């Protein structure tokens, strides 16, 4: 593992690069992991680390990154004004991973809001070959409401009467201060994954809240996994989120996706013709193709 800072020298991002083990694949396969934010970032750190280790054993270059104001990166969440900042961080991460791996294109694997950000970054990037959207946030407003509800419940059950000092500039949610403009930006975020042209694997619990539909059905595959949906459970706020079985399924699926992308020559350079997900092997999937 190579731990390092990268990006703008005045406000650097922290990343962990996992070099592929064994025989390197040609052309190189590269995955950028886009984590969630806030407390979800902390809860999922170990799970994403394990997934990255498994991927690198599959001859894949992996970069895990922290967005501005999150984890070990510079700044604080309060200084982030809109989601564009984090989308541009992902863009910086893509360039860094290409530099480290020599890959011409990368796959983005995003979890929760990280998946929504990854989809937004993919819309703007020709060098993103595909996406894995793991329990993505489909509706920013509902996501915020979940955070607010948990925050209110947490304060309600406090040992004494407690409030957090929100004002016209900031709102505190589960231990982080969000600027009002960032709140508005999250509110406006949507899971319009149909407008993303790259092949995408959506990983959701067996009873998804939303039905995913893509105008080009062969570009999107939905993998249903036997995980419970508990992101809004206050009792789990400080519990490590471990999904080893699902992570393994994702690792296997990404290997399949890389094989198929390679068939379309979409790994070395941006694809001229978009590959599809229609013939992806489904041996590791518990779900159906949408």
């Amino acid at each position, binding site marked *: *593992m*190579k*731990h*390092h*800072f990268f990006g703008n*020298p*005045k*406000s*650097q991002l*922290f990343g*962990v690069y996992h070099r592929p083990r064994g025989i390197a694949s040609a052309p190189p396969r590269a995955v950028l992991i886009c984590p969630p934010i806030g*407390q979800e970032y*902390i809860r999922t*750190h*170990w799970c994403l*680390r394990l997934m990255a280790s498994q991927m690198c054993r599959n001859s894949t270059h992996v970069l895990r990154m922290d967005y501005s104001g999150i*984890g*070990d990166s*510079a*700044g604080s969440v309060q*200084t982030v004004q809109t989601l564009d900042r984090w989308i541009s961080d992902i863009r910086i991460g893509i360039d860094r991973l290409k530099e480290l791996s020599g890959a011409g294109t990368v796959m983005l694997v995003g979890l929760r809001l990280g998946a929504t950000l990854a989809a937004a970054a993919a819309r703007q990037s020709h060098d993103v070959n595909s996406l894995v959207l793991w329990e993505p946030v489909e509706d920013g407003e509902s996501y915020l409401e979940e955070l607010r509800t948990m925050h209110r*419940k*947490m304060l*309600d*059950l*406090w*040992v*004494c*009467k*407690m409030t*957090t*000092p929100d004002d016209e500039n900031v709102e*505190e949610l*589960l*231990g*982080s*201060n969000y600027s009002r403009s960032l709140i508005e930006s999250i509110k406006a975020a949507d899971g319009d994954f149909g407008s993303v042209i790259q092949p995408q694997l959506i990983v959701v619990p067996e009873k998804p809240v939303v039905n995913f539909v893509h105008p080009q059905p062969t570009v999107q595959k939905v993998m249903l996994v036997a*995980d*419970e949906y*508990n992101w809004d*459970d206050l*009792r*789990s*706020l*400080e*519990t*490590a989120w*471990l*999904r*080893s*079985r699902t992570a393994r399924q994702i690792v296997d699926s990404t290997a399949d996706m890389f094989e198929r992308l390679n068939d379309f020559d979409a790994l070395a350079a941006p694809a001229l013709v978009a590959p599809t997900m229609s013939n992806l092997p489904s041996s590791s999937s518990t779900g159906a193709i949408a």
Partner: protein
Amino acid sequence: MIRTTTEMTEQTCQETVCHFGPQGGLFGILTTPDESVQVKDAPIALVLNAGIVHRVGPFRLHVDLARQLARSGYSTLRLDLSGLGDSAQRTGKIDTPNRAELDVRDAMDYLEKEVGVGRFVIVGLCSGAFHAHQVSVKDDRIVGAVFMDGIVFRTLGFFLRHQVGRLLKPRFWRNAIKRRLSGGGAPDRQDAGQTLAEGEFFGEDLDKDSVVRDLESLMTRGVRMLFLYTDGYDDICGRSQFREMYGLQPDEGQLQVEYYPKSEHTFRLIENRQAACGRVTSWMAGQF
């Protein structure tokens, strides 16, 4: 050793990636202050993992603390103990039941060699405080320690204040009923091993007399100590419990004790985190 450095936006500190220990498998981030504010000959603070949370700490507590200390002129290494966060598992024969002791020793050896500082203040929350205690008594390079919700023992005063006292508080009953109505209790676990037993974090053979002896030896050695406790920590209630447990009288000098009656164990609220980070920073400034 791989070292990459970043300047923080505040322009008052730098952060450097550090690898140390066997095959450089242990990892930490060294936060150093700008030269203009650097306190000369100050010890470096070492911040240990709290439970299984990686080095950023619960609700990013360790990052906030490291950067606040840097603004006041102090350096901090927040590290991942072996097998946690991004540090590798320590393999091979280990001659101590507590691998954290080896990890911290390796961190201190590294900083002594690379940075030229040989005095340290160890900081830990919960299991981090337990490890901090174990390391402090064994290594003379530790000149200060901050124990946040560390080792405690229930006392008669605890039972009177907490067990009996809370029964008299309407809010206790209100919260208990609300928790019950909302299906409270332990969260559902899907993966085996998602929870860790207390014994995996804390030594189970701790007895009060040995802890008292340890604290007395630290006092004799001149180690400066700050104990922070929160109401959210199950086994303590009130600042006075410290004296009840250890027979030691806290003061404003070498042995300082603070109790936060409105704080959760992991400093979930910004207000609580700011209070804790501010207290540790002012304590550092007063002691070193």
